């Protein structure tokens, strides 16, 4: 451990500075009282373009992304680069959708996507399904942030779970106190560090390795020599469709996650969101460069840290590369960037999950007359429990299991697409049809994931998201992203179900929103008179 002393000191110091900021954040843009979901859970709903940019960016591009995407590129090549088209198409895709969500949420005081579904389709049950889907999909995502910190700690030679428990306890404490203000403030530091580290990496490391050309050549040589059919520095006939559907399906899923909406709803007007849709791709460029760290690791001959079971831990490939390439003090900065990078999204995700529980389970089913202060209290406590749950995921279960769960999470969150995203545009679907579609999409998704083995880890089921079309009887080696197929099943069943329920004259829920609600903006009398206690 001694050879890592400098790294460790830099890491710990930066980590503590950021933790202190998290506690101070409660005083930042101080409200009269933080005891309401609008303040604790949405930072006062008044963030401008800059804060929103850091907040949403810090939320979507997580520590796990920074660790896992290059690890995938390291192992499989071009396929891992899907993260780039994925984060390019997402912003134009949701540009118009999110401003509608902002408007209707501000008129009605919605805090979660399930709040919207509750009002739009007049169905507490459908809202409950959306809320539970969100909770189940978010939990492993939080756990994955721990995997990101763990990768850095492993590279510093630190084993055991105590450091992670301490880190998460600190995180839990300041999130409890400051709510969304904490990650919003910390995101500035996190992104500054990450930008510095990555810019240094993409200039310094290729210079040391003989330029980009030789880095790609080294990667090509590795994949040419490997027996695996799916790797290479370009795509092949078998995985092109997977690349396209995975990028598209992941983009559809991203803004359905409750935590991505948290940042959007916290912004102060529609223009802040629109401006961010054109400014956020700056992170995509960063992500593309980070992905290429995987190839740099190949060219540099970086070896991942070995797990206790003797298998290499691919997630340590980027930390190891930094360790091999950079002077110790800068490696410490890089590790701190990844570690702090885990705290921002973990905080936002736990807030979003807590809000789902509070609004769509506690207030809907346990205490219908909950006051603002009670809601804030329940959310604060739930956010603690959510983090304990995430830590347990890592301690009790194999971390690999969290990665599989996150894969499943992406597929299941997509099943809220018809009610949440399409619901913003059309009230055509019947609530019964939406529930049937949700169930069918979920079942189809789980069934397909169950059938996918992973030969590399020797698992028979849930081994990945690439479903061979041969299973549908096509004579091909092509694979397709499970989530994409599942959401199509969902849509078809939802549409057929709607027609059926209409034909049978099954009662539909009332729509509590009106057309104008979807276009309201800051300064609009409807928004000004925001009914914070909510009576929808």
């Amino acid at each position, binding site marked *: 451990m001694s050879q890592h002393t400098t790294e460790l000191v830099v890491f710990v110091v930066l980590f503590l500075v950021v933790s202190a900021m998290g506690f101070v954040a409660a005083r930042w843009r101080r409200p009269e009282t933080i005891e309401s979901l609008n303040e604790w859970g949405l930072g006062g709903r008044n963030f401008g373009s800059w804060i929103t940019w850091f907040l949403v960016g810090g939320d979507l591009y997580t520590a796990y992304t920074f660790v896992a995407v290059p690890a995938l590129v390291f192992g499989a090549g*071009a396929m891992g*680069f899907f993260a*780039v*088209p994925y984060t*390019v*198409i997402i*912003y*134009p*895709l949701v*540009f*118009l959708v999110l*401003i*509608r969500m902002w408007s209707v949420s501000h008129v009605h005081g919605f805090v979660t996507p399930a709040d919207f579904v509750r009002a739009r389709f007049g169905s507490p049950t459908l809202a409950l399904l959306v809320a539970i889907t969100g909770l189940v999909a978010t939990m492993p995502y939080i756990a994955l942030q721990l995997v990101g910190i763990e990768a850095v700690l492993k590279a510093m030679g630190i084993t055991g779970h105590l450091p992670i428990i301490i880190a998460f306890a600190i995180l839990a404490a300041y999130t409890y106190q400051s709510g969304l203000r904490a990650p919003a403030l910390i995101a500035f530091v996190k992104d500054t560090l990450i930008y510095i580290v990555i810019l240094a990496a993409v200039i310094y490391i*290729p210079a040391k390795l003989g*330029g*980009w*050309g*030789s*880095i*790609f050549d080294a990667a*090509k040589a590795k994949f040419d020599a490997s027996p695996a059919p799916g790797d290479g*520095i*370009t*795509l092949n006939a078998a995985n*092109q469709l997977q*690349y*396209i559907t995975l*990028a*598209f399906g992941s983009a559809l899923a991203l803004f359905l996650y409750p935590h991505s909406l948290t940042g959007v709803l916290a912004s102060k007007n*529609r*223009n802040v969101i*629109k*401006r961010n*849709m*054109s*400014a956020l*791709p700056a992170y*995509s*460029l960063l992500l*593309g460069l980070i992905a*290429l760290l995987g190839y740099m690791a190949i060219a540099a001959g970086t070896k991942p840290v070995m797990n206790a079971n003797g298998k290499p831990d691919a997630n340590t490939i980027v930390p190891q590369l930094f360790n091999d390439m950079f002077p110790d003090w800068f490696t410490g900065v890089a590790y701190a960037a990844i570690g702090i990078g885990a705290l921002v999204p973990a905080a936002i995700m736990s807030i979003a999950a807590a809000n789902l529980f509070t609004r769509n389970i506690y207030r809907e089913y346990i205490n219908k007359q909950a006051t603002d202060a009670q809601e804030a209290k329940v959310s604060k406590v739930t956010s603690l429990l959510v983090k304990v749950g995430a830590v347990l995921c890592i301690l009790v279960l194999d971390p690999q299991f969290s990665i599989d769960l996150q894969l499943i999470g992406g597929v299941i969150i997509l099943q809220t697409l018809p009610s949440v995203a399409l619901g913003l545009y059309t009230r055509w679907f019947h609530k019964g049809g939406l529930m049937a579609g949700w169930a069918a999409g979920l079942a189809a998704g789980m069934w397909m994931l169950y059938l996918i083995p992973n030969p590399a880890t020797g698992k028979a089921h849930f081994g990945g998201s690439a479903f061979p079309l041969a299973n549908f009887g096509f004579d091909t080696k092509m694979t397709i992203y499970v989530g994409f197929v599942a959401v199509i099943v969902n849509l078809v069943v939802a549409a057929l179900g709607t027609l059926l329920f209409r034909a049978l004259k099954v009662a539909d829920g009332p729509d509590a929103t009106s*057309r*104008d609600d*979807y*276009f309201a*903006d800051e300064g609009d009398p409807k928004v000004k008179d925001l009914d914070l206690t909510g009576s929808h």
Partner: protein
Amino acid sequence: MTTGEPGQPRTDRSPWNWLLIVPIVLPLMTFLFNSDEPRLLGFPLFYWLQLAFIGVGVVSTTIVYRMTK
């Protein structure tokens, strides 16, 4: 956001919105960029063209934002 005249319902409709389709479709057309050559500064086409699409996305969303403000 178009702040319509009083009495006229507000809307998000604008012909400029169609521009958003370009950066959604372009990065999914793998046949455009699934190749090693030509390289640029050592980057195979597959990589530099997809990174260039980020610029297409930024330009398109910025234009739509400006024109519909």
